[in-house]
């Protein structure tokens, strides 16, 4: 009888509240009895914290405009989440950090100088269509921030591919690509157009002195954030490392003058600039912060390795032979779509069954 009453208690009332209400001093509950002080919300905020260095670096490199893009993206994401949850009569969970993170990641994936409505439209699309239409956090098939980015990319390619050159260019660092007054191509776009890339060093790429999206340029800051997540155990190595390794391997083997690249010649291949491919574009940002999203990636370790290699393969294919210069967002979204089937084929055997 007592047990049944325990079952029927208000689900909203937490154990702590019960403890302090004084009604029921003795709590009978199922295992586990020891639990860590972790929640989805806390993890989301931790990821946000780990992304701060990259944002600061982006603002430092591209100037104040980048800050506005980030702020607009976040505010629009929060307001959209609130309005949609209000209309759908769901529990309003604006402050759980997930919408904040989506807005932040979307803004990190935008060029530093975009019209003010672009991050707003992207965030609205990411939250409303990318997440809430599927039923909110935990139900979405595709990474919301990347859904928003791809929508913007397909809708306003003019703004999404106009990159400004870094403010720091020339200040002590070797000059990046031949930039005119404001705009400059990203290293990958220049590579796609067949320009020579000798005047951009790997160090410049590492510190982020190049054209690109706000959050993707400073590899050093991104690795700092990723290290924090690794140490706290919020992400495992399985997806990011296999992803980056796969991109490095495929671009090394099939590189610019590699195998299958016409004109075919003897002894070709195994000459691609793999470090360039790892350091340029959004690979580090995508591998550590977006391909590790809990909701849209496989659950099992084996599945995560498959996911990482698949992402790397698709990214390398798009970069080497595709129409777009960069393929990280498309690769992650495609593998997001494959996640249910990966989960089905890698699910672990239940103990005692065949």
């Amino acid at each position, binding site marked *: 009888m007592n047990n049944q009453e325990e079952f029927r208690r208000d689900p909203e009332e937490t154990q702590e509240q019960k403890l302090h209400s004084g009604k029921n001093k003795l709590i009978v509950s199922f295992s586990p009895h020891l639990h860590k002080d972790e929640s989805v919300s806390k993890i989301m905020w931790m990821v946000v914290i780990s992304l701060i260095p990259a944002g600061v670096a982006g603002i430092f490199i591209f100037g104040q405009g980048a800050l506005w893009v980030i702020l607009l993206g976040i505010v629009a994401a929060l307001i959209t989440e609130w309005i949609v949850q209000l209309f759908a009569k769901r529990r309003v969970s604006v402050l759980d950090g997930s919408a904040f993170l989506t807005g932040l990641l979307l803004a990190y994936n935008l060029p530093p100088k975009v*019209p003010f*409505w672009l991050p707003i*439209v992207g965030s609205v699309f990411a939250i409303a*269509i990318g997440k809430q*239409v599927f039923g909110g956090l935990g139900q979405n098939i595709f990474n919301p921030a990347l859904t928003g980015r791809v*929508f913007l990319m*397909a*809708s*306003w*390619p003019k703004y999404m591919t106009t990159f400004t050159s870094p403010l720091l260019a020339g200040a002590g660092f070797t000059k990046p690509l031949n930039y005119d007054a404001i705009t400059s191509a990203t290293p990958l776009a220049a590579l796609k157009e067949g320009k020579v890339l000798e005047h951009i060093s790997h160090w410049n790429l590492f510190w982020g002195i190049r054209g690109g999206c706000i959050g993707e340029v400073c590899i050093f800051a991104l690795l700092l954030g990723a290290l924090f997540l690794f140490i706290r155990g919020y992400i495992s190595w399985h997806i990011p490392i296999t992803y980056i390794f796969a991109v490095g391997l495929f671009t090394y083997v099939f590189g610019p003058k590699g195998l299958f690249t016409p004109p075919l010649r003897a002894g070709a291949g195994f000459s691609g600039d793999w470090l360039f491919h790892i350091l340029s574009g959004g690979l580090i940002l995508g591998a550590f912060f977006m391909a590790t999203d809990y909701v849209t990636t496989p659950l099992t370790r084996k599945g995560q390795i498959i996911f990482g290699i698949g992402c790397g393969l698709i990214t390398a294919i798009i970069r080497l032979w595709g129409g777009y210069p960069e393929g990280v967002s498309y690769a992650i979204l495609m593998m997001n779509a494959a996640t249910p089937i990966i989960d089905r084929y890698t699910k672990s055997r239940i103990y005692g069954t065949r």
Partner: protein
Amino acid sequence: MKKYFYEFLKGIIKENPTFVLVLGLCPTLAVSVSVINGIGMGIAATFVLLGSNVIISLIKNIIPDRIRIPCFIVVIATFVTITEMMMKAYSPVLDRALGIYVPLIVVNCIVLGRAEAYAQKQTVLNSLFDGLGMGVGFTLALILISGIREFLGAGKILGHTLVKGFQPAFVLGMPSGALLVIGLLLGFFNVLKNRRE
């Protein structure tokens, strides 16, 4: 008379071919880039539906049950050919815009669906109003979808710019945009329907 009016009206809302029966999505996806294409496609399909429903309802007792589908197709194809020739003669611009999708009305599942599910069992007058209602419902759905897509995807309605400085989202003019708009509208109408019940 009231009965016929009901037969006409059900095709527009209660059994709307696009949003409730979810039939004929292929031409809907393909031609709903601009409102004028949507209207042209809708009128062509309405004419074919009207003709095929009436003729099939008339000959329903003559055709053997086993080969009814080929018979339906012959009737439908006749009307589609008439439509196509008329369109080529009087509106070559629209014909070029719609392209292959005019002859493809032959295999439009709304037309064959109404023949199979309705016209071969009902009286001629009922079938006539059913075909008319379905055609008008299809046309209205096409106008709605193509209106949204043309406005947001190209910034225009019927070729006229409405809002100055509006930056159209190209994706809505692409096939993926059609799937997006149709999916969201389907969801929206389902929400409305569930709320009314």
